């Protein structure tokens, strides 16, 4: 066997090992209900902001504490606690991707990148926002 072939085999083995360990660290997308079944495990939830309940954020008291409520398409709701600043456009987000753990009844997010907002027109075209603009007045 040639050296190069050996090297390639080793490289493939390493790549496979890395990918397997990568896959092992992945989390799953869950609904709020199924996340409740897995307390303490890191999961990802796609939901939207529950507008009926207020967003709690008082930077004068504590700039590192945000709490709000989400509801998902199945109609379940949960309280979310995020230990960072309030993302600027949280109120306007159409959809929120949250990565964290269910801790009792509260969904805890302990990493800054645990919240990803999908906002209308960040630097993209959103027909709905534009339509809204045109129907005003």
């Amino acid at each position: 066997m040639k050296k190069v072939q050996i090297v390639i085999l080793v490289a493939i083995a390493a790549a496979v090992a890395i990918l397997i360990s990568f896959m092992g660290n992945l989390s799953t997308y869950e609904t709020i209900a199924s996340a409740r079944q897995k307390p303490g495990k890191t999961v990802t939830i796609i939901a939207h902001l529950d507008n009926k309940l207020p967003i709690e954020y008082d930077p004068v008291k504590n700039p590192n504490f945000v709490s709000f409520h989400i509801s998902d398409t199945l109609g379940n709701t949960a309280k979310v606690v995020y230990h960072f600043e309030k993302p600027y456009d949280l109120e306007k987000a159409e959809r929120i991707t949250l990565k964290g753990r269910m801790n009792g009844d509260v969904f805890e997010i302990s990493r800054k990148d645990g919240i990803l907002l999908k906002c209308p027109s960040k630097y993209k075209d959103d027909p709905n926002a534009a339509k809204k603009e045109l129907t005003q007045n």
Partner: protein
Amino acid sequence: MEYIGEHLLPGKIGHFFAVLSLAASLIALISYFKATNAKTPDEAQSWRKMGRIAFGIDVLAVFAVLFTIIYIVSNRLFEYNFAWEHSSRSLPLNYLLACIWEAQEGSFLLWTIWLCVLGAILIKKAGKWEAPVMTVMSFALFCVATMILGIYVFGHNIGINPFILLREKMTGAPIFSRADYLSFPQMKDGQGLAALLQNYWMVIHPPILFLGFASTIVPFAYAIAGLWKKQYGDWTKTALPWTLFSAAVLGTGIMMGAAWAYESLSFAGYWAWDPVENASLVPWLVMVAGLHTQVVYNATGHSLRATYFFLITQFIFILYSTFLTRSGVLGDTSVHAFVDSGMNVQLGLFVAVFFIPAYGLFIARYKKIPFIAKEEQTSSREFWMFIGSLVLFLSALFIIVSTSLPVMNLFRKEKLTTGDDPTFAYNRVEIFIAVLLGLFTAVTQYLKYKVTAKDHLIKKIAVPTIVALTISILVSVFGGINYDKYGAGFMVAIHLAMFAAIYSVVANAAYIYSGMRGKLKAAGASIAHVGFGLMLVGILFSSAKKEVLSHNTTGIMLTFDPEAKQDPTENITLLKGVRTDMGKYWTTFIDGDSIEPRSKAQYFHIRFEKKDGTKNFDLYPHWLKSNKGQQQISANPDKYHYFDRDIFSYITAADNPEQRRDDTVRFKSNPVALHDTVFYSKGIIILDSIVVNPEKYHFGKGDTALMAKLTIISKDSMHYTATPVYYVKDNQAQYIHDTVFAQNLALRFNGLSAGRKIDLGIKESAAMVPFVALKVYEFPQINILWIGTIIMIIGFIMSMVWRRRQARALRAQ
């Protein structure tokens, strides 16, 4: 209905040229294809002539499209969707081009323009390779032209028409039922350019990045041409400057994106392994792998098959990246991908029409690609260059597989996503890649092609090795890298990588003198490697030693969040005028009222005073309020540059001045006797004394003034004083309020009440104190990263010039 005041002609002209460019690129494609497969030179010549004419028409049409869009936007023709959606009257002209590439269709146009420029150069320079290479170019031009076509075929739309009218796009909106809709206020101005893009980086970063994207097709086209014409090894020397050009420009574009993210976005860093960043890094890694094997083939005849594979694959990855970032599949995983624009099938096809024929041809011809049966020596340069390329490729493969999770999810029932710590998932693998690449780049130049004598190698490499080892031990001991967040193993890896990076810098710098005897013209590769090594050093330092300075160390008000464990308290709140303790600095929020009229940016003035008194400086981080669609805020950081580190700060929250004005909370009245105590939500207030006609206010003889001296003791046993004043002027009761910002407390002396008591008004409201919450980071040695990048790019360019001269000399023979 006849609409009043519309300018329809520019749109018709623009769309005509868009269709013309599609047709012309198709004719160019067919002509060049025929020219490539022609049996006789005469036949080839006539087809090629036709191809050139068609290509020329295409170029004219593409520029006509561009100028029409510029005309529409600069003349504020808001009846066009493009102008209405992406520009506004207040937009300064230098951002005119930026609003063109804000739109999907505009960025495709940018790609087309660069393809045209590159095609024109190739026609002039490619010689006998013109026909096959231009066939590939024309095919790409044809594909990209469909992206800005915007016509409907059997209910499917093909491309996005940049010349569509707003009323055609928003068919449902009621105002378009009026013939005079253009006189309506919402048609008088456009939506404007997204605030994030109103930045000088956005004027230069996209054109460079897209030139990089567009240029990757040239090495790919040469590889296809080689397979197609069965002249397998003939093109590699001619095409080498192109590979270098592409690697240089794409690398510059990527790093400009990193600089943009660092300079003006609040991502708190230059690289976050965001899928959009990865999507452009991966083709670059494969391109660099292909570049090395191409050099190996030119020097030794080895690695031609690998060269084909890498140069084809890098371009396929470019197309795949385009699909990833523009199709909307990354919507839930990336902060800055485009949204789904209904072109997914078209974008997928764009990948497929290149993927299938390119790999098909590669596999069909694979056996015929020449190779040297005798294997490379372990002591040879080509062997280790190949291994290095393989490592680059595997690293790219790892990144792209990880980035493609959303695509895999399309076919899976149980949807997967990144785990707990997405960036560490990359870092823990890439750190070892960095170790390997650092070592390879350090040592391999000292090896000779074919075979290297052992004592020769040892003699040459001994000094740089010892120097590098010494420096890196010094760095490890005194550099203060104690990044134990991920355990000792990872920290060891960081120190290893630091050694490898320093080794790469030292060994390559030394090689310029010992190996090339200072012959700088030919030293492009060594210089690029020095730059690459410096980049690694900068990355390792700034990431491992990045420090959050804005820990809330005030010790107050943190009982609110008992769950805040370890150190996520990255924000600190500064009350206006209150000097606050922040680790090594005292920080004061001076004011936040200055607003730049044009961009509506609100600047916050923050003063930093180093506690040891050596340094004071001011930062002005600001907020941009976007006018786009809805109110939207984006924070732009400000930095103070020390020579060896940056202090980086951005605003994460601020109070709303309007809210402060409409403060509806009322003063609650409380009768208090002298030395009496009243409660408020966070503590007690004691009336110490009452002063008549206090001196500090300079009351006249006829005035009656009373000042209450109050002591406030909060729950956390902090003491504050307040002195509200009550006075009578012109028979009117007047008040001078006092506030305790830290307690959200406003106090008013309402007057006297029965039983030797005073009436004390107490108001508690969060909305009254001007404040900001901000983050402050320290990035050490970030300058090494930028300097390394510049050196690497210079190395690439020097190499390109050198190889071009070699290729020209070869042609002249």
